[in-house]
C-alpha cells in the first residue's frame, strides 16, 4: 500500500492521551491514529446519511445520541 508521511504536532496532553490509548488497546500509535480515522469516517458517513448514533448505558438503558457539529 502506498504510504505518505506527515509530521503531526501534538500537545503534551494529546500525546499523553495517544500513549495511554495505544497502550490500553495494545496497538502502536500509528495503528491507533489509523483506526481513529476509520471510525471517524464511519460515524460521520452514517450521520451524513441521516442515521443516528447512540451510546447506551447498560445498567439503566439510558441512551445518549452522539451529535457531531
Amino acid at each position, binding site marked *: *500500500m*502506498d504510504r505518505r508521511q506527515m509530521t503531526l504536532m501534538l500537545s503534551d496532553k494529546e500525546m499523553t492521551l495517544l500513549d495511554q490509548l495505544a497502550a490500553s*488497546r*495494545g*496497538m*502502536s500509535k*500509528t*495503528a*491507533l491514529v*489509523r*483506526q481513529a*480515522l*476509520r*471510525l471517524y*469516517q*464511519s460515524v460521520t*458517513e452514517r450521520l451524513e446519511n441521516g442515521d443516528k448514533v447512540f451510546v447506551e448505558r447498560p445498567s439503566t438503558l439510558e441512551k445518549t445520541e452522539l451529535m457531531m457539529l
Partner: protein
Amino acid sequence: MKELLGQVDLYNRESASYDKAEVYQELDQKNFDDFDQLWQPMLAKRGAEVHSLAEAANANVQDARWDWVGKAKVAAMMMGQETFAVECGETQGLMLVNLNGFGQIEVQKGRELIYIELLATAPWNRHKLVASPRYKGVGRILIATAISLSIDSGFHGRLGLHSLPQSESWYRDEAKFTDLGLDAPKRMHYFEVTVDQAKAFLEDK
C-alpha cells in the same frame, strides 16, 4: 488502487499439482469483468433453479445475489473497508472486510478486529455446484490474508465472521475458530478468531 500483496500456491484438483496464484488488495475492472462475465452467469443459472434457502445451500449458490461490483466501489471510498482478490488467470476468490469490528468473546471483548463481511470462491471451485471443482484452498488463502491484515492493523490477528450454514463445520472443526452460536438477526452462526487461533491458523499448512 489495486496492489499485489504476494504469490501463493493454489492446489489444482484437475492436474493434482500447485499453480501460482496472486493475492491482490482492492479489486479492479478485471475482477469486475470476471465476476460479471464468468461468475454471475453460473450463479444465476443455478440460482434460478432453486426455490428456498435450503435448496440454495445445497446448490452452494447462497451468494448468487451478492453485488461484488457495487460493494467494491463503495469499499474503495471507505477507510474502514478493504477488498481482496485471488487470481490464477481468472478471479478465483473475493473477500470484503470491515476494519471497524469489535470482539465479543470474553478474551477479546471490545477489542478491535477485522470482520469478514463477504467471502466467496469462484463457482467453478465449488462442490455441489460443479461436478469437478477446479481449485482447492481459495477460502483458506483469503482467511489468512484477513489475519495478516489484522496483524498489520495492530489487531494481532483477531477476526470475526458470520458463516453460511454449509461452511460452519469448516470454521469450527477445520479452522478451529470459536463458534458463538446462532446470531438470530442474521440467521447465521457467528465465529471469532482469537490471537492464538490466528497464529495457529497461519502455522497450519
